[in-house]
């Protein structure tokens, strides 16, 4: 069952109100606060999910959480390369897997080759740098004067020799909630929903005690 952000948030709000006083539940926490927490909890849980699969020896990411964007390619002819600005910061995963794939719009089944950012400066001059004639990409941090982190291609893909590409499709693993209204179905798998609720409840109840706990404490005194 897919859910929207508002459905999840309202459920958490109700649970939290009952947690405080089950006989007199009320909207004691602002729904906007809960919605923000839901977004953050989803990202955290997605990362944990991936990390768990890595530990088990598998390399898998929850594909239903991938979001596809279109990015405009900018030429940087001085360095014989080109770049796009990342529309959203991906999850930090080994080998930069937060960016799942980048491909030309007309060649989605032949994506560009991902190069781990830590390797790209090492392999210059080595046989590997030719990449068997293919075009690779790597993440580089935000430019001081620019906006957003950049992904560079190893060649200037705007040139006709490299396909005259002006925009690319990029699949990113991140729950970017700017892409969803409060009532849109979230791109998360059903088994993640309960984990999100538990995570948010855990955060907002931190340092507070429920009425039942307070009563038992008073009885003890």
């Amino acid at each position, binding site marked *: 069952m897919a859910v929207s952000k508002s459905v999840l948030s309202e459920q958490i709000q109700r649970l939290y109100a009952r947690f405080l006083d089950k006989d007199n539940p009320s909207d004691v926490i602002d729904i906007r606060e809960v919605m923000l927490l839901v977004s953050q909890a989803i990202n955290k849980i997605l990362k944990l999910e991936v990390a768990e699969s890595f530990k088990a020896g598998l390399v898998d990411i929850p594909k239903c959480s991938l979001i596809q964007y279109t990015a405009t390619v900018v030429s940087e002819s001085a360095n014989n390369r080109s770049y796009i600005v990342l529309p959203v910061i991906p999850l930090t995963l080994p080998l930069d897997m937060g960016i799942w794939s980048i491909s030309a719009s007309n060649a989605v089944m032949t994506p560009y080759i991902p190069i*781990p950012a830590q390797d790209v400066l090492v392999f210059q001059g080595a046989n590997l740098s030719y990449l068997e004639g293919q075009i690779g990409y790597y993440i580089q941090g935000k430019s001081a004067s620019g906006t957003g982190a950049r992904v560079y291609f190893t060649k200037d893909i705007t040139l006709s020799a490299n396909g005259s590409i002006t925009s690319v499709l990029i699949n990113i693993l991140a729950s970017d909630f700017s892409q969803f209204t409060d009532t849109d179905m979230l791109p998360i798998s059903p088994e993640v929903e309960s984990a999100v609720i538990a995570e948010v409840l855990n955060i907002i109840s931190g340092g507070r005690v429920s009425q039942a706990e307070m009563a038992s404490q008073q009885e003890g005194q």
Partner: protein
Amino acid sequence: MKTKSINIIVRDALLDNGLPLHYYTRYLHHALRITDELSMDFNLGNVKTVELDVTSYQRAILPADFIDFIDVSAKHGERLLPMERERTLNKKYNYDDSGNKIPYESTLSVNYDAEINYNLISGSNNMNTRGELVGRYYGRARAPKLTFDIDEVNQEIVFSNGMILTKVTLTYITSAVSRSTANVVTPYATDVITKYIQMMAVKAEGSTLGKYQLAKQEYDNARRIFRSRMNATDFAEVLGSIRNGIVGSLKN
């Protein structure tokens, strides 16, 4: 001729391990390393033959991609007759009074036809000009005069001063890995490259020694199979080898 690209071998290895494209560069690195290494012992398309001009000072300039020579030969009809390496040749340049490079003085006069007949074809100078053995055959006393050596410092082939050829044919080894075209190898090499990738991946991920040893064993076995496939000998070659040992000799 059917070949297999390194790109496909790497993608196959990723599929074997159920890994995404993010591991491609690391696997490709391993594949190129082992291809380069295998090419030192096996012809993976990296053995080239070129004809070189002999300079006025009895040398020939080595190609830029030269790693090591297989043979330096003289042309003789449709065949190439390998010349002999003579390590005592002086590799220091000789100059005339004007500072031009010149060959060292020859102390031997060489007749090219006789040299070809005596030393490159027959392997002996105990023959007359009609190719008949002249007796006094006390051991194989060769006196080759068409000789060469490699001057690694100046990247040239040095010839003996009596060598009168104006062109020689060089067969040499260069690197099998190209940085300007996609690399391909013989399908025989697929398994050994794949097993090397697996072994290095196991090593890189810090696996247990047992897992690494198992991967290494598989690689060693794949390399053995590859070596035997590349060095296959057929019946005609064996027969030819035996017949080559049957030669005429002096009647006592």
